[in-house]
């Protein structure tokens, strides 16, 4: 597979089957550094499976995934885990923060796992919490903050390692409109500042409107909507 020029992460002919269910059936994808791509589609269309394959969480049955010049689909589990820690960030809809840790400890966690000492890790975490406008929550535990605040803490944690690719799966799914919009504004601003690519899975058009372009997944197949017009 030859990646499209300038692409950071791309996939070709992805197929993934779970028992009798075909989750992906020839899906394609590509994203450039600094680009925000929305992955849309009805429930059960395969959009989350596509995200999990692209992020190296799930191995496709067939097809190729290239990250920079490396074939993700040919890496060992250990290599993919290392890559996820160093180059990828994740934001999900629910339950991402460790309830026993304070918010700043949660945000610092990926750096601590990569071996950064506590003080510099928490300093970097605070910088990202300021950017996400939640630095005043540093000493609180996740159970003491609102859903919108908790999601901003989760975004800060996803960005603290300055990943090259941020994977966001329904990041505003549990938030009201105003909080959802603020999270999207801060998330896309922060990603653009660091030139990170964002793979944004959403079924909400108002969230997808924060992207640069969208692909639609239906029955496991993807369609690049730029080419639909």
């Amino acid at each position: 597979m030859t990646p499209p020029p300038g692409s950071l992460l791309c996939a070709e002919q992805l197929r993934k089957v779970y028992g009798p269910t075909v989750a992906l059936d020839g899906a394609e994808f590509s994203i450039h550094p600094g680009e925000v791509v929305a992955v849309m589609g009805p429930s059960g269309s395969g959009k989350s499976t596509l995200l999990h394959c692209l992020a190296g969480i799930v191995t496709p049955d067939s097809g190729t995934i290239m990250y920079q010049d490396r074939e993700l689909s040919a890496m060992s589990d250990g290599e993919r885990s290392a890559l996820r820690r160093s180059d990828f960030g994740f934001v999900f809809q629910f339950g991402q923060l460790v309830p026993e840790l304070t918010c700043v400890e949660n945000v610092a966690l990926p750096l601590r796992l990569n071996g950064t000492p506590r003080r510099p890790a928490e300093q970097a975490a605070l910088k990202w919490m300021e950017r996400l406008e939640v630095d005043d929550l540093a000493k609180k535990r996740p159970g003491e903050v609102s859903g919108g605040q908790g999601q901003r803490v989760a975004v800060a944690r996803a960005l603290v390692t300055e990943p090259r690719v941020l994977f966001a799966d329904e990041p505003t799914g549990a938030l009201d409109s105003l909080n959802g919009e603020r999270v999207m504004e801060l998330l896309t601003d922060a990603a653009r500042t660091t030139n990170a690519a964002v793979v944004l899975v959403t079924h909400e058009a108002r969230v997808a409107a924060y992207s640069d372009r969208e692909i639609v997944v239906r029955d496991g197949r993807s369609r690049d909507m730029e080419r639909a017009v």
Partner: protein
Amino acid sequence: MSIGHTLLGLLEAGPRHGYDLKRAFDEKFGHDRPLHYGQVYSTMSRLLKNGLVEVDAVEAGDGPERKRYAITEAGVTDVERWLTTPEKPEPYLQSTLYTKVVLALLTQRNAADVLDVQRAEHLRGMRILTDRKRKGDLADQLICDHALFHMEADLRWLELTAARLDKLRQAVTR
């Protein structure tokens, strides 16, 4: 909604008299607002003048002559152009979108493509509004929000219709 394009699209199935065209229009698209005869004949005169239809046969009767109209090559091209050109996103265009989808089904075109092209156009409009909202003051934000909610409703309709295309095909081609 463009009555001219809709009548042209109906003619793609084969030549029809003005009365048959009105009846087909009312049945498929008229609902509670049937066409007036005057609208049909003035529209057909315009289409004839523009070379999009031709008179296929004339029948003499007790009253005025009855003309049977047929679509021309230029007419087919015109319908094709109308169906494949997205509408400018604006509130309350469902009736136009509905007509386009039904006509695409009736003329064996790809109705899913009609919906996808429109969907992409709507999302493009929503991106422009979202960007304006981010850079604007509260008044801008509220004005953009109003438009965004309407466009979001259109998009939900487009998605729902895409999911029901097979049933709609069965219903309209019965």
